[in-house]
């Protein structure tokens, strides 16, 4: 289907009654696209025209039936309007035809305006809940143009120079070779000469603390989508709704709500967790979360086997994906086969080792944790982690690892290794010693606990632990290109709220870390652009600069595939139908800094 045909189909769909169009328009359009190759356009156009008449006919018929009931006073006064020999059906057909002719004329007058408007409305109103979780906050009824830009195709790694991208109400309506003419006023035109356009980035593992700090920074850093991996559930569901109804400006968000852990699991802070005692409670909680609006379920270390498998099965049954940690008592393979969609933090250093089952059987983690808490000797925790880790390392088998990676790839289980967080665990001292201007976005009360001497994980560390975390980091880091080569799909995630992670910009760091590990710049960029979109099944509406897709883009000063430091040099962001230029982005950053100060003052 070429652009003109696509557009005329969209126009005809747009002319349908709003209730029908919002409910079925997107599906119909997809079907027409699929059928187009089999049937040719004449038959489909006829079908669409008939549908138009039929739907307007039914609307008008329903209206006529409802009218007497709705206006008894008019009837009582004898003011019957439709006493002519016209039947309601004839009248409806006449009206539908006039509406059609009028609209057709109107559309000829406004060729660019409607397809976008239509699709945009679809993406906000007709899409299944959760799939396009957050719609644009305020409808901006105008066109924008990015002129003479180089488009970065994040699927193939190719560059398309000198393109003009026309955006209408948040949707790409055309991508054409650059011509030096434009009908738009200067404020709607963005000069893309020498600049590079990429799809918006995602942070696929985050915890939102302050929406007034985190959200503006995400947008200002070109991170236009997030996956919230747990928080205080009332707060999460509240801001999720605000994002959806447009009262809050921020990235597109997919949320788990709380974190599901066992009765004695390590979820921290405790307010993020829901304690699941058994399978029955697990199933019930999955149902409850779905009703509350969760897009997926986050599972955690302390869940019992029974609870975990019940949660996974219930999630599968009601189509609520399960993602997160693999519980201590479950093997990585079991989690993969239970349908867990993503595993966080480097497969938690277990599955590659022949010692995996032994580690599970000994339940070392629980023992030393419990003992440390009982005795108040917190050094037992890092010591225990090191002991457990060495056991894993002794049993490390590349063959077993490769087989596991292949299984992950075959099952479409994504890995979200949160490298920036792993780096902090191994090299926190180096990070603490380095000044970082981004610390102005962290309130002083929190910053104190970033110091190695203050943080629970580092305060009680032992030499054995310090040595172990570096070995672990190096071992797992080396596996990344191998995992990539065997077909594993990575997601860029930061685990925001962990020390030395920053809203938005840490995603750039995460992408660069993938390259340090041995991935190509394209593969690394895909972890934050293409892969998240595929993870959520949103390829039809996001993830590339193509007509019909939502315009969620970032304009960079330089080519990211040549140098990923260019991710830090953002010239503009297009999101929610808005064009945010550099001064707008700087203003967003400033509001975040102000909000941090306000929070700090409140704490005092």
């Amino acid at each position: 289907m070429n652009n003109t045909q696509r557009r005329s189909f969209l126009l005809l769909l747009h002319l349908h009654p709003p209730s029908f169009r919002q409910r079925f328009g997107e599906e119909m359009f997809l079907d027409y696209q699929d059928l187009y190759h089999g049937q040719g356009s004449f038959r489909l156009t006829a079908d669409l025209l008939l549908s138009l008449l039929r739907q307007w006919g039914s609307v008008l018929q329903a209206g006529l039936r409802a009218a007497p009931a709705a206006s008894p006073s008019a009837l009582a006064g004898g003011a019957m309007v439709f006493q002519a020999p016209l039947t309601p059906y004839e009248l409806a057909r006449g009206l539908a035809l006039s509406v059609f002719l009028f609209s057709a004329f109107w559309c000829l007058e406004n060729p660019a305006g409607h397809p976008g408007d239509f699709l945009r409305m679809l993406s906000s109103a007709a899409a299944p809940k959760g799939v396009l979780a957050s719609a644009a906050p305020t409808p901006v009824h105008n066109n924008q143009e990015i002129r003479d830009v180089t488009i970065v195709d994040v699927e193939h790694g190719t560059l398309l120079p000198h393109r003009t991208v026309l955006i209408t109400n948040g949707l790409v309506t055309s991508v054409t070779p650059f011509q030096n003419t434009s009908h738009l006023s200067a404020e709607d035109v963005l000069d893309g000469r020498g600049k590079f356009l990429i799809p918006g980035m995602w942070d696929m593992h985050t915890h939102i603390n302050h929406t007034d700090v985190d959200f503006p920074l995400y947008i200002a850093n070109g991170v236009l989508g997030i996956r919230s991996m747990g928080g205080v559930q009332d707060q999460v569901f509240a801001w999720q709704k605000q994002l959806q109804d447009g009262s809050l400006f921020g990235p597109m968000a997919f949320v788990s709500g709380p974190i599901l852990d066992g009765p004695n699991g390590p979820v921290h802070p405790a307010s993020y967790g829901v304690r699941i005692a058994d399978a029955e409670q697990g199933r019930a909680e999955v149902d409850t979360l779905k009703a509350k609006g969760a897009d997926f379920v986050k599972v955690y270390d302390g869940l019992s086997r029974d609870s975990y498998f019940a949660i996974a099965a219930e999630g599968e049954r009601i189509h609520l994906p399960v993602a997160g940690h693999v519980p201590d008592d479950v093997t990585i393979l079991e989690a993969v086969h239970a349908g867990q969609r993503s595993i966080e933090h480097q497969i938690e250093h277990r599955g590659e080792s022949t010692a995996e089952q032994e580690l599970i059987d000994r339940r070392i983690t629980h023992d030393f944790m419990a003992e440390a808490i009982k005795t108040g000797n917190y050094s037992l925790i890092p010591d225990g982690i090191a002991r457990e880790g060495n056991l894993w390392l002794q049993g490390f088998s590349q063959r077993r690892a490769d087989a596991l990676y292949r299984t992950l790839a075959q099952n479409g289980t994504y890995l979200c290794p949160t490298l920036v967080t792993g780096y902090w665990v191994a090299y926190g001292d180096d990070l603490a010693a380095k000044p970082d201007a981004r610390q102005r976005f962290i309130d002083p009360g929190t910053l104190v606990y970033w110091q190695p001497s203050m943080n629970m994980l580092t305060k009680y560390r032992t030499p054995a632990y310090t040595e172990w975390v570096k070995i672990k980091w190096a071992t797992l880091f080396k596996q990344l290109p191998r995992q990539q080569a065997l077909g594993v799909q990575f997601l860029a995630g930061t685990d925001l709220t962990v020390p030395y992670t920053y809203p938005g910009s840490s995603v750039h760091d995460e992408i660069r870390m993938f390259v340090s590990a041995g991935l190509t710049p394209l593969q690394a960029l895909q972890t934050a652009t293409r892969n998240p979109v595929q993870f959520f099944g949103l390829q039809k509406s996001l993830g590339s600069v193509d007509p019909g897709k939502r315009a969620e883009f970032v304009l960079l000063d330089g080519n990211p595939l040549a140098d990923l430091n260019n991710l830090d040099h953002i010239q503009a962001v297009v999101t929610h139908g808005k064009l945010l230029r550099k001064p707008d982005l700087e203003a967003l950053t400033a509001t975040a800094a102000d909000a941090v100060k306000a929070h700090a003052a409140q704490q005092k």
Partner: protein
Amino acid sequence: MHVLLALTSSDLHGYGILLEVARQSQGAYKIGPGTLYDNLKKLLAQGLVEETLPKRKDPAPRREYHLTTLGSAVLRAETERLTAVLKEARRRLRLNERARA
């Protein structure tokens, strides 16, 4: 009836229904999306069909439709009715043939 029949073996999205209807009628009966969604609108309103969320593993999930218990019952009743009609038609044809003979 065709749409309900298409949904008896599994939940399908719109395009799947179009293909299944064509398959079941061996290509004799092809409906377009306009007809399909008009039917689906009515079936949804009557509670004969309900929508389900897209399948988790589908790379590009679409809304799927599911035959409700009521839909099944209606389909069964309609099949019974049509069977009776067919029976009657066959009986009459036979009578007709006999009369001619």
